[in-house]
């Protein structure tokens, strides 16, 4: 008994993994429908004119963004937490009935909230704030889910055997704290039926902030929700899974320190870059710009640390599609954290803001960096949770190339579209009149919207391959022994 290795318990990690795969496919399917709607408006009436109220772009958009961010990514993050947490803290979930109960409650309450959110958004129940569209009852539900996760984090830390917290744990703690702070302040709202004495919809509320202040708080939230849902926990994953999969130690502890503390301090300041040339004070806008540029340092610090972890082992990139996903993810992280600061420079932002270039930036980050890292992480975890090898290496390879092509089509078309749009809006003719009416800029984008929709569709096809490969891995591929699971993940043909 004494000398047996710890048996980790992946019950909760598995639940979150199933949901990540399911919502990943569903959320991106919604995204692909949106992309085709912008290319051909008839897709707004895809289920007939009677249901167009529920299938049009306006209603679907939030369902797409929220399900990918909070469904696909957060589920994957939590799957990774319930996997990595046990391993780096050297303690099993099975050792604490309490933490196991908290973990399951965390999952099921989260699922219940997710269902309510999707139905609500479909019905048009929204606070209008991007990535925070939920009305007050759901906001409270989110607090419950978040607190349960917090108990799980600090509970597991409390009974740990390994005293020193590994880098991934730093990032999970930061994610927990920052999102808690952002969520509470951005959703400060008053339900209208309380003061009015029960008039109108009970779920409706009004923001505690007005106008410019509301915008300021919203983009302090919006920008940093990106930071602390789509960046920090993904960095947590890359610090664990890339070294594990490649068998290489993290290149530099000092770079990890720089990357972590730098990111913590700098990221929040940069929110102002969403409000350049708005009615927010100019000094604040410039601060947003400057800190966005400074943000390159910690972002690239982590990314280079990842890249150098592969030092001397680059042949693994060619050999393993799983390493390909992780290295490509890091490449897109560098790419996207350079592109972001460029767009945050005021003169560039004057051109880029309100255009599709921003959408392109979001998606090279979300599809290239977050999507690929999550896919890599789930591929790495599944064989260890289910004690089976990956069903098909060649399918994984095909998925990688199809999705890479998809991302490239997506962001290149949106770059061109965005810059075209921005240039047309500001163009003057020889008489000093605006050269184009707004609709000219809409019509000009038609071909790029088609290319984008094709790119998105390719990525979605890759997601279906991923789901199939994972399903087979969980259910019917070859059973493996513990000693095959040390580093490189075993894969079938």
């Amino acid at each position, binding site marked *: 008994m004494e000398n047996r290795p710890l048996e980790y318990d992946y019950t909760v990690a598995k639940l979150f993994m199933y949901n990540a795969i399911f919502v990943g496919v569903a959320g991106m399917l919604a995204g692909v429908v949106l992309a085709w709607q912008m290319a051909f408006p008839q897709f707004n009436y895809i289920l007939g*004119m009677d249901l167009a109220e529920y299938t*049009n772009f306006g209603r679907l958009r939030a369902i797409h963004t929220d399900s990918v961010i909070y469904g696909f990514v957060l589920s994957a993050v939590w799957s990774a937490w319930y996997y990595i947490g046990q391993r780096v803290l050297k303690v099993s979930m099975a050792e604490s009935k309490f933490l196991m109960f908290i973990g399951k409650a965390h999952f099921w309450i989260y699922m219940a909230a997710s269902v309510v959110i999707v139905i609500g958004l479909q019905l048009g129940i929204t606070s209008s704030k991007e990535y925070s569209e939920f009305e007050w009852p759901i906001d409270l539900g989110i607090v419950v889910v978040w607190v349960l996760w917090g108990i799980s984090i600090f509970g597991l830390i409390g009974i740990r055997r390994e005293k020193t917290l590994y880098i991934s744990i730093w990032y999970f703690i930061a994610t927990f704290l920052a999102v808690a702070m952002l969520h509470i302040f951005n959703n400060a709202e008053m339900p209208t039926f309380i003061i009015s004495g029960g*008039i109108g919809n009970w779920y409706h509320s009004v923001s505690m902030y007005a106008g*410019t202040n509301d915008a300021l708080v919203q983009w302090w939230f919006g920008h940093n929700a990106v930071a602390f849902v789509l960046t920090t926990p993904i960095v947590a994953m890359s610090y664990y899974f890339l070294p594990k999969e490649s068998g290489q130690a993290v290149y530099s502890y000092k770079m990890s320190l720089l990357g972590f503390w730098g990111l913590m301090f700098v990221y929040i300041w940069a929110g102002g870059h969403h409000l350049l040339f708005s009615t927010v004070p100019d000094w604040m806008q410039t601060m947003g710009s400057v800190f966005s540029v400074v943000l390159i340092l910690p972002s690239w610090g982590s990314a280079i640390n990842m890249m150098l972890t592969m030092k001397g082992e680059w042949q693994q990139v060619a050999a393993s599609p799983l390493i390909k996903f992780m290295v490509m993810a890091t490449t897109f992280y560098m790419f996207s954290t350079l592109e972001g600061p460029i767009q945050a420079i005021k003169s560039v932002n004057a051109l880029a803001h309100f255009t599709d270039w921003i959408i392109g930036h979001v998606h090279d980050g979300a599809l290239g960096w977050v999507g690929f890292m999550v896919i890599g992480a789930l591929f790495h975890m599944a064989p260890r949770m289910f004690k089976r090898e990956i069903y098909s290496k060649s399918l994984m390879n095909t998925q990688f190339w199809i999705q890479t092509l998809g991302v490239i089509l997506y962001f290149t078309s949106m770059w061109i579209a965005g810059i075209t749009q921005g240039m047309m809006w500001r163009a003057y003719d020889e008489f000093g009149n605006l050269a184009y009416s707004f609709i000219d800029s809409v019509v000009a984008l038609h071909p790029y919207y088609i290319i984008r929709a094709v790119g998105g569709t390719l990525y979605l096809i890759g997601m279906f391959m991923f789901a199939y490969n994972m399903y087979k891995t969980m259910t019917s591929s070859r059973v493996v022994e513990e000693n095959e699971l040390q580093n490189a993940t075993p894969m079938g043909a």
Partner: protein
Amino acid sequence: MFHWLEKNPFFFAVAVFVVIAFAGLVEILPNFAQASRPIVGAKPYSTLELTGRLVYIKNNCNGCHSQLIRPFKSETDRYGSYSKSGEYAYDRPFLWGSKRTGPDLMRVGNYRTTDWHENHMRDPEEVVPGSIMPKYPWLFKNIADVDTAYAEQLTIKQLFAVPYNKPLPTADGSTQTVALADSLDGAHASALEEAKVVVADMKDQAVKDAVAAGKIPEIVALIAYLNRLK
């Protein structure tokens, strides 16, 4: 120090939180009092306008249309004078948007009319060839939620002292007053009065009939809101 922090999760978490919270305190708080002060000419939304604003939000119009005119000549030429902070003092939530798939709407009331909106909402492509905006036929059928708008008005009046029933200064030196009814029935009656003004310029017989029967379709409220954006 870092090695010590990494062995002491509580202090680690405190340190992380302080580092994260710092920027918010320095950057966001100082502006609060100043930015929420209304500009001369700004006025709260009437019951029907606010009802229309809820329709605007419900259909995520802000997903494709901004309400923020940046201080560039190409923007002021196209949309009218650039946005001032005090103009947004009664906007809860703000509706600046982040993407212009369609044009800015901050001052759309200056250059579009009721019948233009009516035709456009029914079939955008017919009014603006090449438009990719979807049709909104349900706005002509759904009845607008005046109750919730009224509840919101009562809430903001009490909570944020929004000046309903008070004379407010305008740019030409005169004053204007936005009325708020003292009962739900009164709110419905005043919204219906506003609706009658809007439908006088509309063609859709079913919508006219609905208003005549005391009901307000969503399209009427939405147009009342759009007309007021100036």
